[in-house]
């Protein structure tokens, strides 16, 4: 039965597929369908049966009122910004044993380590943040520097969180360079405490990786050590192998994927992600002219995703934002207890809004976090995957924190992810969205 009142959602992205069909994504609900081109117009006009229309309404592909849809999204976004779901980035140490030239934290890292008193006071701060909400959860990313230079506090933090927040869902993830894993036993212990995954980076063939990710104390490369550790823990914990690319190593990455395949790492527990190396306020990597352009980034990403999926690897596409910078229950805690709202801004004095040992300054937090959706974004179908973009990227590029629109690139990446989701249904990770 025709229903002229139905409209295509304002959060719709479409892309043509090689077989002549169209993929239709709702960026808010994440529902993805494919449909013959000839049927698309009929669907948009609500010309299909009530059964089909109702299903498309359920998926969010069709809506009854686009203005009401926006208002509902705004309410939803508000509920995401203000909730008892705490997203915590815990900087176990700012120290690192490697000297990667592109590191966004720069070369001169302070050797601060987080301590028990800071973790204990942080727990009180999280309880305070959650106190006015009924639904509560805790999601922690342990990072640094190199977080495994402070294993004692990794164990202590998970023990304390498990005890103090036992009545709510918890998830733990870690970003590590993978060089400080000393036996599978400790990884089994962390997994038993709730660690759900670890991100470890490999940046090219052994020669290229070792030129980029070497030990600070000896200049010794780390490729063999890291690959050995990945093999050691691959059956214990899901591993996200991150491969950073630029003009210098892009052509060598297929060789790495081949090597990982030969090593037998195309298994369910391993996911590959490919990230273009970016400039930061503390590195001067642009000087060596290796950073790629926006169009190259998408082209390279497409090639690498196809190459990896052909070898039966799981792949994931990560999008910039929204993250803790849009979340009033988001905390980034530096080893000295200073609190921020963005991992990129951690350590920059102007962007701290207090210290867990003394006082959290919620007035300053409100100055740093934009509430709601930027008015310029109101008509954009990508708001749910972007929410205004990476505010730290804007800070790096213009010197001022704020909305960072990369619509053209993001749209290309979203379309790329749609194609890969259609073609590789079971081995591509969903992207982060509001």
């Amino acid at each position, binding site marked *: 039965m025709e229903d002229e009142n139905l409209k295509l959602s304002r959060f719709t992205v479409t892309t043509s597929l090689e077989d002549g069909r169209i993929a239709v994504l709702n960026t808010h609900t994440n529902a993805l*369908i*494919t449909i013959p081109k000839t049927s698309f117009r009929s669907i948009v006009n609500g010309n299909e049966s009530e059964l089909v229309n109702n299903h498309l309404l359920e998926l969010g592909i069709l809506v009854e009122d686009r203005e009401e849809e926006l208002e509902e999204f705004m309410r939803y976004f508000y509920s995401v910004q203000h909730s008892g779901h*705490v997203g915590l980035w815990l900087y176990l140490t700012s120290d690192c044993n490697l000297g990667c030239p592109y590191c966004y934290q720069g070369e001169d890292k302070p050797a601060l380590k987080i301590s028990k008193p800071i973790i204990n006071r942080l727990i009180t701060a999280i309880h305070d943040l959650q106190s006015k909400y009924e639904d509560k959860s805790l999601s922690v990313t342990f990072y640094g520097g190199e977080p495994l230079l402070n294993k004692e506090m990794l164990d202590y933090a998970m023990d304390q969180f498990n005890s103090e927040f036992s009545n709510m869902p918890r998830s733990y993830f870690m970003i590590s360079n993978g060089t400080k894993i000393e036996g599978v036993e400790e990884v089994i212990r962390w997994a038993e405490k709730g660690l759900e995954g670890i991100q470890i980076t490999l940046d090219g063939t052994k020669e290229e990786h070792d030129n980029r990710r070497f030990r600070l104390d000896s200049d010794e490369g780390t490729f063999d050590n890291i690959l050995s550790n990945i093999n050691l823990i691959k059956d214990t914990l899901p591993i996200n192998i991150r491969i950073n690319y630029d003009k210098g190593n892009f052509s060598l990455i297929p060789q790495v994927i081949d090597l990982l395949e030969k090593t037998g790492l195309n298994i369910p527990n391993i996911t590959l992600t490919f990230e273009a190396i970016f400039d930061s306020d503390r590195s001067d990597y642009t000087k060596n002219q290796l950073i790629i352009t926006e169009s190259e980034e998408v082209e390279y990403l497409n090639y690498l995703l196809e190459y990896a999926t052909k070898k039966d690897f799981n792949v994931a596409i990560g999008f910039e934002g929204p993250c803790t910078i849009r979340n009033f229950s988001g905390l980034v805690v530096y080893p000295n207890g200073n609190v921020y709202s963005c991992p990129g801004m951690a350590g920059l004095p102007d962007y701290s809004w207090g210290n867990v040992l003394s006082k959290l300054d919620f007035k300053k937090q409100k100055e740093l976090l934009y509430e709601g959706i930027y008015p310029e974004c109101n008509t954009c179908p990508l708001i749910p995957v972007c929410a205004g973009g990476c505010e730290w990227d804007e800070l790096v590029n213009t010197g001022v924190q704020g909305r960072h629109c990369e619509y053209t690139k993001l749209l290309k990446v979203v379309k790329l992810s749609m194609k890969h989701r259609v073609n590789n249904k079971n081995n591509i990770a969903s992207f982060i969205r509001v």
Partner: protein
Amino acid sequence: MVTVKEINQKEKELRKALNIIGIEVIDKSNLKDGSTASACGTFCSPVKTTP
């Protein structure tokens, strides 16, 4: 009360109706109320696969 048989019948009818037009549902809506994005693509990509 709706029986399992009725639910299965409705799903069968829906699949048939979608097939006629050629719609393939790759992923259903998985919106979660109040869920929080705690990570971002720049630093940390998700490792969970599509549900």
